């Protein structure tokens, strides 16, 4: 491979410059050709393998794997320098020449003859046998090899190239295809597999009646063009990219605008965006006009809990980066890159430095919102701006008559002198939280010789009461309302959000004409300000009359130049109300305008200038070693990048390299992934790992042929779907055959279509579809199935009942990490914490309980029952039973089903039948 030549040259160079520096006490190399198995292995077996061999790997070092043996374990200091035995630390350790490290630490030491053999072996290039694997930058592992371009074999019985490869493998095992499935089954299978929804009975009947020779192809094309296709296949992709709409970890807060990424995926798949562009968009969509695509980078969990403890902060950041690297590795390359975080990959040719080169690519990516750069709708903006200008003009005219708007510092209410024993300040709205007043001053009407005085003061004998008080809190007490002291720390706060009242009672009736109040005269705080309030006075208890309030004030937030002590007037309430209305509309318009002008903001990551990246010894964030430049996998000749490569360029270069025509992994991974979803098992049964620890392909030529076709035909996913769907392989019956089951019970050779239980989403969507309740609206924010307790640490509890709002497809169910839908979560539904390339498929009694007794299913049963009545006007019970079975199974009922169903319905109602149907194996089955 490409990386090898320069390394070989470097080794030669090293040999030339340091060849003569052998210490005198190292025995000279033996002068014969060394054979590893004959000469070296016995030494390793005797002295080394007990700690550094197949069973144990102290310090992650092993001498039975060439790559690790040469490049080192945790210490990574290249213990073997091929071509130069004398300079190889390994030889120095075993010769006892290194004062710090002597190997083996216990037991007999190597004799001089053995040392001479080892030295010669290293001098001659330290060659290992093939069985010991390859060097870090070479590999013979199949998935790294260039794509094979096999010609589809000719087989009898026809079919497309897929069938040729599958058929040849079947023939080798002395097996044959099963007969084609009947049309009813095919239509149901097609809709469930491609759209995640069953076909309507009418669709099935129409297909059965379609005599056109290309009837199947037309049905396939219709399904591929259907917008539900994008939703169904986006759900698969969201598993792989660990997408969820909460942050996870202990606070688990909502991510309310993460859905833009989901919508982007749906649209991309529906438009058949070429897969290479699909990949590039997700790593660097900001560079190619697909900015929502980068939601991929930050779709994983994010720890919001921050601490002054730096060790925690560093570890959190490394976990974030690991999440991005791992997800990219599993999703696009089918490699477990995370294994190289602490040491060189134990199975695949991925040195630890490659891992850190990849983290350097993402080093500037931060979990955060970012505005989506979408074109601004200029015409719409112009209309809004004109409206806004009109409103502003109108408002400006109106408010000249009105008093000043309220402000946090100081407000004056001036009115005609009035007799008062009681004054009450009532608040009905604030700019935020519970209302706060720092002081309420009430002045007597001045007369000659008797200046106005504040009769509200407690020292005057005035007593405060209120609707309720915040706290207990030393700063905020009822007594502070009239203590003569200003500022937040001498204030009163109501115990109710946005409302409350405070009342003062004077020791005797007085004549007053002015009230002054503020939220904080010291101007440190401007929250909690009453914005809707009125002031009433009474001479006798209960005989209130209003003297001032917002009735004639300009709306809060508007600007006005009236004098502060203008007399309050009750005849301007209409104008004030108009002004408030205008002000509200101006606010809304401004928000809409700004939103439109800026475009939406989504959880698609923020890009900061990247800090330097270092290799971390054993993955420890507090043990940084050498600086590492951004890059890819050395073995696949990644693009060169500078240590200070600009942030976006890092991601873009990596992304383009991922989809470069000579990268064999990316196309293999995606065609295998599609195959996995079609047949339940991939050609490689570990779709997240095509590395040495994954499984081998069952049909290697087919995999490569499809991968080559993918990369060579514009990366169209729909084109590959079409090929698969029109293959004889896919269209086979799924019924078991004794001869084939005996040989291949797991159906890996595809002698039939492998039937299986539907996944959670398809089950839920199918129920909604059968009952007719389904809400097919696409896109936008999802629906929620949890009530949220808004504490610092969020708590989610399942909703008790569901309404029409929850009857959209499950792909739009707001995905909360850790929490699962109370019925469908039990069907192996991933929660977005881990990359899931292959869901497990288990069967548990909790699933049965959820489907039998869960409120959702009961509601849908009743709706299905009602639908059967509506669909069969004037029909008999038998007709309704038949309709229910057609809606649930897409087939006509058998006579015994009609009989048994009628008996059930007669005694217990149609909903009982519907409940049984929605629980049945046939309903949950991909046939």
């Amino acid at each position, binding site marked *: 491979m490409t990386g090898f030549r320069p390394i070989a040259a470097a080794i030669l160079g090293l040999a030339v410059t340091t060849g003569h520096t052998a210490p005198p006490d190292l025995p000279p190399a033996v002068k014969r050709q060394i054979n590893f198995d004959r000469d070296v292995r016995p030494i390793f077996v005797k002295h080394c393998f007990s700690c550094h061999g197949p069973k144990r790997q102290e310090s992650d070092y092993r001498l039975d794997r060439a790559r690790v043996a040469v490049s080192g374990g945790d210490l990574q200091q290249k213990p073997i320098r091929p071509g130069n035995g004398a300079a190889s630390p390994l030889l120095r350790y075993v010769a006892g020449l290194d004062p710090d490290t002597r190997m083996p630490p216990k037991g007999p030491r190597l004799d001089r003859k053995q040392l001479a053999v080892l030295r010669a072996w290293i001098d001659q290039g330290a060659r290992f046998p093939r069985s010991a694997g390859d060097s870090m930058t070479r590999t013979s592992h199949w998935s790294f090899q260039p794509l094979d371009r096999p010609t589809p074999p000719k087989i009898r019985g026809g079919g497309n190239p897929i069938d040729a490869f599958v058929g040849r493998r079947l023939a080798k095992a002395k097996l044959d295809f099963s007969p084609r499935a009947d049309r009813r089954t095919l239509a149901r299978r097609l809709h469930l597999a491609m759209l995640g929804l069953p076909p309507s009975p009418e669709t099935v009947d129409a297909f059965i009646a379609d005599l056109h020779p290309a009837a199947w192809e037309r049905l396939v094309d219709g399904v591929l063009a259907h917008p539900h296709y994008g939703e169904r296949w986006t759900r698969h992709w969201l598993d792989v990219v660990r997408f969820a709409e909460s942050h996870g*970890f*202990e606070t688990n807060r909502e991510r309310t605008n993460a859905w833009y990424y989901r919508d982007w995926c749906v649209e991309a798949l529906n438009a058949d965006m070429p897969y290479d562009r699909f990949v590039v968009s997700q790593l660097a969509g900001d560079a190619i006009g697909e900015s929502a695509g980068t939601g991929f980078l930050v779709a994983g*969990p994010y*720890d919001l809990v921050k*601490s*002054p*403890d730096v060790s*925690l902060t560093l570890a959190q950041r490394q*976990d974030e980066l690991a999440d991005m690297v791992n997800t990219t590795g*599993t999703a696009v390359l089918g490699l*477990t890159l995370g*294994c190289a975080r602490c040491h060189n990959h134990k199975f695949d040719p991925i040195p630890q430095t490659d891992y850190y080169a990849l983290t350097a690519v993402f080093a500037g990516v931060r979990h955060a919102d970012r505005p989506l750069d979408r074109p601004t709708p200029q015409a719409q903006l112009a209309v809004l701006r004109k409206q806004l200008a009109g409103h502003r003009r109108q408002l400006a005219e109106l408010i000249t008559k009105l008093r000043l708007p309220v402000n946090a510092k100081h407000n004056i209410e001036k009115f005609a002198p009035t007799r008062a024993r009681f004054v009450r300040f009532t608040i009905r709205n604030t700019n935020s939280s519970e209302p706060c007043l720092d002081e309420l001053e009430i002045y007597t009407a001045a007369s000659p010789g008797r200046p106005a005085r504040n009769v509200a003061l407690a020292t005057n004998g005035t007593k405060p009461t209120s609707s309720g008080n915040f706290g207990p809190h030393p700063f905020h007490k009822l007594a502070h309302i009239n203590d003569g002291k200003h500022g937040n720390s001498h204030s009163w706060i109501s115990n109710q959000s946005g409302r409350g009242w405070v009342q003062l009672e004077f020791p005797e009736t007085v004549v007053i004409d002015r009230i002054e109040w503020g939220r904080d005269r010291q101007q440190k705080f401007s929250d909690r300000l009453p914005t809707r309030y009125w002031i009433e006075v009474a001479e006798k208890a209960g005989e209130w009359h209003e003297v001032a309030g917002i009735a004639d004030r300009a709306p809060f937030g508007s600007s006005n130049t009236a004098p502060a002590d203008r007399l309050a007037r009750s005849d301007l309430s209409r104008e004030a109300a108009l002004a408030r209305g205008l002000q509200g509309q101006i606010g809304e318009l401004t928000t809409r305008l700004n939103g439109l002008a800026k475009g939406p903001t989504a959880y698609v990551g923020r890009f900061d200038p990247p800090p330097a990246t270092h290799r971390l010894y054993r993955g420890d964030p507090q043990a940084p070693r050498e600086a590492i430049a951004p890059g890819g996998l050395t073995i696949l000749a990644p693009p060169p990048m500078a240590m200070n490569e600009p942030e976006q360029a890092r991601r873009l270069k990596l992304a383009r390299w991922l989809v470069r025509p000579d990268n064999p992994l990316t196309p293999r991974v995606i065609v295998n992934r599609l195959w996995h979803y079609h047949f*339940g098992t991939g050609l490689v*049964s*570990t779709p*997240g790992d095509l590395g040495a*620890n994954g*499984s*081998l392909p069952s049909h290697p030529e087919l995999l490569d042929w499809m991968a080559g076709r993918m990369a060579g035909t514009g990366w169209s996913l729909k084109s590959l779907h079409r090929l698969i769907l029109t293959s004889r392989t896919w269209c086979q019956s799924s019924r078991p055959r004794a001869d084939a*089951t005996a040989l291949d*019970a*797991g159906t*890996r050779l595809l002698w039939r279509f*492998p*039937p*299986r239980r539907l996944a959670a989403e398809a089950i839920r969507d199918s129920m909604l579809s059968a009952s007719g309740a389904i809400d097919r609206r696409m896109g936008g924010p999802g629906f929620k199935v949890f009530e949220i*307790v808004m504490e610092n*640490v969020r*708590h989610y509890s399942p909703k008790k009942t569901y309404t029409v709002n929850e009857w959209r497809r499950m792909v739009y169910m707001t995905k909360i990490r*850790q*929490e699962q839908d*109370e019925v469908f979560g039990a069907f*192996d539904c991933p929660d977005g*914490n*881990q*990359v899931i390339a292959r869901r*497990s*498929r*288990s*069967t*548990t*009694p*909790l*699933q049965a309980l*959820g489907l*039998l*007794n*869960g*409120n959702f299913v*009961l509601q849908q049963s009743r709706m299905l029952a009602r639908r059967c009545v509506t669909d069969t006007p004037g029909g008999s019970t038998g007709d309704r039973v038949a309709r229910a079975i057609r809606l649930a199974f897409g087939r006509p009922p058998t006579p015994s089903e009609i009989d048994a169903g009628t008996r059930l319905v007669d*005694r*217990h109602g149609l909903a*009982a*039948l519907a*409940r049984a*149907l929605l*629980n*049945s*194996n*046939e309903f949950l089955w991909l046939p």
Partner: protein
Amino acid sequence: MSPRTSLDRRRFLGDSATLLGSTALATLLDQDGVLADAPIRPAINPSSPHASRSAHFRPRARQVVMIFCSGGFSPLDSFDYKPELIRRHGEPLPGKKLITFQGEQGRLTRPLYPFRPRGESGKMVSTLVDHLGELADEMCFVHSVTTKTNTHGPAENVMSTGFTLDGFPSIGAWVSYALGSEADDLPAFVAIPDPRGKPQSSVNNWGPGFLPAAFQGTDFNAARPIRNLARPTSITPAADTATRRFLDALNRKHLDRFPGDSELAARIASYQLAARMQLSVPEITDLSTESRSTIRLYGADSRNPLKAGFARNCLLARRLVERGVRFIQLFNGSYQTGGEGTSNWDGHKKLKVQYDVHGPILDQPAAGLLADLKQRGLLEETLVVFCSEFGRMPTFQKGASGRDHNPDGFTVWMAGAGVKAPFSYGATDPFGHRAVEPPASVHDVHATILHLAGLEHRRLSIYHNGIQRRLTDVHGDVITDVLA
């Protein structure tokens, strides 16, 4: 199950994640390299994933009860007696200034509860846990446990799953994956949340991770039943029975078209198990059959509703042990009803005030459980583990009357099957800050629990995304000193 659904034709080998429903064809293709390191994988019959399976070697403990004190239970105020801390009370912690989870540290602070020698062993235990202290002779203390993080959620994850991140299989899931259950009408793994709500990491503490969902913990407690367990009130018993009978007939007809299909047969079986659970679970949560003396032993008659609630959960735990449930995770403390120490052990600011509330809720009921298991002979084959996600600092936080998180040295104790008692293993430094002699990681604790359950922690694994995943990651050594 019907004799028609003959499953024995199939061999269920290898990776159960693929196998619950579809069989990997390792034998025919002989290509799947995933079995190379020959980990021990349980052979799981998809129709009864909870059937009892044999251990790797003879187990000492057939069942495990894990009492999990959520929030960071302070060993220095309970089980880890530090005379030096008392002597040096009020002095600064030697060494350079320490920044921990919430910030700067104040002075060394002696235990807030007096310690007294207990039992024949004379083990010093504080009055915070007086009842538990009286059982000190039954306990095997590991005083030198360390964990990987000082944040609650991730640390709860470590204690329950071995990893800081969410989404890894919990220890109860691992054990039930390996061993199934002794009970055929109950889940293999039950998580009992505190009456006040769920712990910080919520369901991740008992999640299946990437193990099949069959092995997730089923959460219910004495006050809150399993979701969807009861027949809905809108459906009469007769209608329910008739519906299920009709469903069963439909399913059997359908199975005729796919003879021998294990996934379909498993679904039929799951409805039968569900029906059995509908009978057995209400019975097991009905504590009215318990004697007055038992009720009093646990403190389930307490006028403190939180104590009585936790006591009923402890009683429920014993009943689950009696019925053969494999793994029981019993939580004390929650995050559902308020943060920082109000409903759990997270005593940052006013530790004494809060522990005065939490101590009585925990102490007598947990001690009652241990004593009851002992007197009924159940402790012979049951391992009880008492743990928290981490401990707390020997200092008060600067300007506060509470202790910050301490992941570097805390106490876990075990009792019952297979462990030495009375026994104390490991120690923290003289102040109780860091584990010094021999430190034991949470992985070591997990390895030890698995060992006692008859499982080799290095070989109990599942293949996930390219890695043979284990409870103990790539770490863990059995703490052999504590084995009886």
